[in-house]
C-alpha cells in the first residue's frame, strides 16, 4: 500500500470527509515527522493511507471535527509528542505519569510527570461517584471506570485506560520479523491469531510476497476456531453476569472442546505464534481434520439446545433486552466493528468488505441486527458461531495440498504494508515499514476496541449500575490491545 503525502488542504479535505460520513476513520498514528491517517470508503471497500508532514511537531486536529480521533490524538501526543492543533481534549491518555520518560517514541525527555488527572466535571443534586479499578473484582484486565450515578442510574461513565501499556510499538522498532510477529501475537491474547494474521499479511504486502494457498486456508481455520472459542466464552459470561450460571457452565465446555481441538490440530490451545509471515508455523496435524469434524459434530449437537435455552428463558431476556443500547448513528460515526457495530446495524465485516485470502473463496453471511442492546450483541455472536461452523466445514473440505510456508527474506527490503483482519471483536489494523536491514522500522497496531470503548460510555447512560457488568461483557473490549 502506497501512502499519499498530503498538503494542509488535503488533510483538511480528509477531515471534512470523515465529519460528513463519506469516509470512516480506520486509524491515526504517529511516524515522526509524519502523522498517518487510514481511511475507509465503505461503498467501494477501498482503504487509503494519508501522511501529513508536521511543522514543529504539530498537525491540524482531526478530533475537533471528528470525535472518534480524540483518544488516538491523545495517545499520539503521549507517545510521540506530536500535538493536534485545536484539539478540544489535551489530557494525557496512555501516559499515567509512571514511565520516567515523556514522549518515549518521539524526542524522549524526562520532564516532570503530569499532575492529577482531571476527570470530566459533573454537576447536579444527589449525584455520587463510584470509582472502579484498575484492579477489578473478577479475572479481568486492568482499567479504571469512574461512574457518576443518581441513585441506581448511571449519569456518566468515564473510562481511564492505559494500565496495560507495555510499549509494544517501541519494542517493534528494530525487531526482526520473527520477534515482531511474537509481539503482535501478544498484543491481545484472546485475538492472538487475528493479530498474527494481520501482521503476516502486512509483512507479506511490504515484502511483495504471498503465503501459499494451504497456509491461507489454515490461517482462516485458526481464525474461525478463535472466533468460536471467544464467542462461546462471551455468550456464557454475559449470561453469567445475569446470574444464569447454567449457560456459562455449558458454553465453557464447548469453549474447552474448541481449545482442545486447536491443540490437537496446531499444538497450542490458543494457537499462539502459529501464523507467521510466509505462511503458518506448522502443518495441520495428521489427525487434524478428524479432530475438527468431531468438534463440529459435538457443537452442532449441543449448541442449538443452548440457543433455545437462551431464547426461552424470560428472566434472562429481561436483563438483556433493551439494556445498554448503542445508537446506530454512533456506531456509524465511530466506524465500530464487530458485534458492537453489527448489533446496531453497521453492515461491515473485514472478511467480506475487504475480502482477504482465503475468505474471497467462501460463502458466508454477515449477521446484522438493529436494536443495539445487549440481547442484539448476544444474537450476533450466536449467528456468527453458526457462520463460523459453516466456514470451518468449507475450509476442511477444500483444504489445498502443497507447502504451508514460503521462506521470507526481509533483508534489503524497505517496503510498507497494511492489513486488516476480522478478529472476533472487530477489525484489527496493522501497518508496518521495513528498514531494509531485515528489521521492522515502525509498526502500528490498532485494535477494534479503540472505536468501541467510547461507545460503552454512551451505552451505559441511563442504565442502572448493576447492569454495567452485562453491558461491559457484551462489548468485551480489549484493554491490552487498546493500551498497547
Amino acid at each position, binding site marked *: 500500500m502506497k501512502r499519499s503525502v498530503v498538503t494542509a488542504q488535503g488533510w483538511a479535505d480528509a477531515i471534512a470527509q470523515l465529519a460528513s460520513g463519506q469516509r470512516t476513520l480506520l486509524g491515526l498514528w504517529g511516524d515522526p515527522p509524519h502523522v498517518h491517517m487510514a481511511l475507509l470508503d465503505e461503498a467501494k471497500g477501498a482503504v487509503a493511507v494519508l501522511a501529513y508532514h508536521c511543522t514543529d511537531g504539530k498537525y491540524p486536529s482531526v478530533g475537533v471535527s471528528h470525535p472518534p480521533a480524540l483518544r488516538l490524538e491523545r495517545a499520539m501526543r503521549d507517545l510521540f509528542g506530536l500535538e493536534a492543533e485545536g484539539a478540544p481534549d489535551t489530557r494525557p491518555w496512555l501516559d499515567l505519569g*509512571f514511565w520516567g520518560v515523556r514522549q518515549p517514541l518521539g524526542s524522549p525527555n524526562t520532564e516532570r510527570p503530569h499532575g492529577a488527572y482531571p476527570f470530566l466535571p459533573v454537576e447536579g443534586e444527589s449525584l455520587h461517584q463510584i470509582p472502579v479499578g484498575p484492579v477489578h473484582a473478577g479475572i479481568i484486565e*486492568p482499567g479504571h471506570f469512574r461512574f457518576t450515578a443518581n441513585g441506581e442510574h448511571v449519569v456518566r461513565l468515564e473510562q481511564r485506560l492505559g494500565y*496495560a*501499556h507495555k510499549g*509494544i510499538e517501541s519494542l517493534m522498532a528494530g525487531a526482526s520479523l520473527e520477534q515482531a510477529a511474537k509481539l503482535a501475537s*501478544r498484543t491481545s491474547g484472546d485475538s492472538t491469531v487475528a493479530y498474527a494474521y494481520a501482521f503476516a499479511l502486512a509483512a507479506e504486502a511490504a515484502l511483495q510476497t504471498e503465503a501459499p494457498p494451504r497456509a491461507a486456508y489454515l490461517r482462516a481455520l485458526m481464525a474461525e476456531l478463535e472466533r468460536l472459542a471467544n464467542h462461546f466464552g462471551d455468550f456464557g459470561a454475559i449470561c453469567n453476569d445475569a446470574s444464569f450460571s*447454567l449457560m456459562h*457452565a455449558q458454553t465453557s*465446555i464447548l469453549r*474447552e472442546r474448541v481449545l482442545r481441538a486447536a491443540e490437537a490440530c496446531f499444538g497450542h490451545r490458543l494457537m499462539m505464534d502459529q501464523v507467521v509471515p510466509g505462511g503458518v508455523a506448522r502443518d495441520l496435524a495428521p489427525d487434524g481434520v478428524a479432530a475438527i469434524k468431531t468438534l463440529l459434530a459435538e457443537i452442532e449437537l449441543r449448541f442449538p439446545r443452548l440457543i433455545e435455552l437462551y431464547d426461552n428463558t424470560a428472566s434472562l431476556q429481561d436483563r438483556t433486552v433493551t439494556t445498554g443500547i448503542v445508537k446506530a448513528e454512533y456506531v456509524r460515526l465511530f466506524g465500530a466493528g464487530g458485534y458492537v457495530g453489527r448489533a446496531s446495524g453497521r453492515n461491515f465485516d473485514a472478511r467480506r468488505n475487504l475480502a482477504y485470502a482465503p475468505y474471497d473463496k467462501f460463502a458466508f453471511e454477515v449477521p446484522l441486527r438493529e436494536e443495539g442492546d445487549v440481547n442484539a450483541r448476544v444474537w450476533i455472536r450466536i449467528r456468527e458461531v453458526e457462520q463460523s461452523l459453516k466456514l470451518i466445514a468449507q475450509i476442511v473440505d477444500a483444504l489445498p495440498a502443497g507447502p504451508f510456508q514460503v521462506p521470507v527474506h526481509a533483508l534489503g527490503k524497505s517496503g510498507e504494508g497494511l492489513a486488516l483482519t476480522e478478529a472476533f471483536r472487530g477489525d484489527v489494523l496493522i501497518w508496518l515499514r521495513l528498514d531494509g536491514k531485515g528489521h521492522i522500522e515502525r509498526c502500528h497496531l490498532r485494535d477494534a476496541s479503540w472505536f468501541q470503548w467510547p461507545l460503552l460510555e454512551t451505552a451505559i447512560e441511563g442504565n442502572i449500575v448493576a447492569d454495567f457488568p452485562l453491558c461491559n461483557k457484551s462489548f468485551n473490549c480489549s484493554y491490552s490491545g487498546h493500551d498497547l
Partner: protein
Amino acid sequence: MRRTLLESFTRGPLTEPPPKPDEAALAELAQSVDRAARARLGRSLSIRQVDAGSCNGCELEIHALGNAFYDLERFGLHFVASPRHADVLMVTGPVTKNMREALLRTFSATPDPKWVVAVGGCAADGGVFAGSYAVAGGVKDVVSVDLTIPGCPPNPRQLLAGLLALLQTAS
C-alpha cells in the same frame, strides 16, 4: 433447561482426574510455607487474581480452571473478589509501570500469611516485553514471589499442578 440439567446426571461427569502436584513447585514452596500458616489455612485457599499488564492470554487459561473439566473448586481452591479475602495473589503479565502501584497496594491489602504466584512467562521475567520503557519487569521485581508457573500461557493442567503443590505445602 430441564433436558440439559437431567442429562448432566445421566451423561456422567466431564471432570478429569487431577494432575500430580508439580515436583519443581513443591521444592520451590518447601521454603516459603511455614507450619503456623499451614495450621491456620487447612485445605482451602482463596485466590485473588491480579492482571498486572498481561496480554490476557493467561487470564483465559485461568478462567478455564473453573470449567467442568478442571473444576478447581473441588480442591478447596476458589477465586475471591477482594485481596482482603485472599491467601494467594495470582499475578499475570509483565508488571507495567502503570500497574506497579496498583499491584503493591493489592499486595499490602492482602492479610498475612499470603503467597504470591507469578503466572506465565511475562510474570516470570517480563517475557517478550522485558526492557520496555513502560515495563517494570517480572512480578519478582515488584513483590516477593513464592511460586512461578511458566508457560505462554501455561495451560490449565500446568496451572492446576502448580496450585495443587501450593495446596499440599500449605495444608
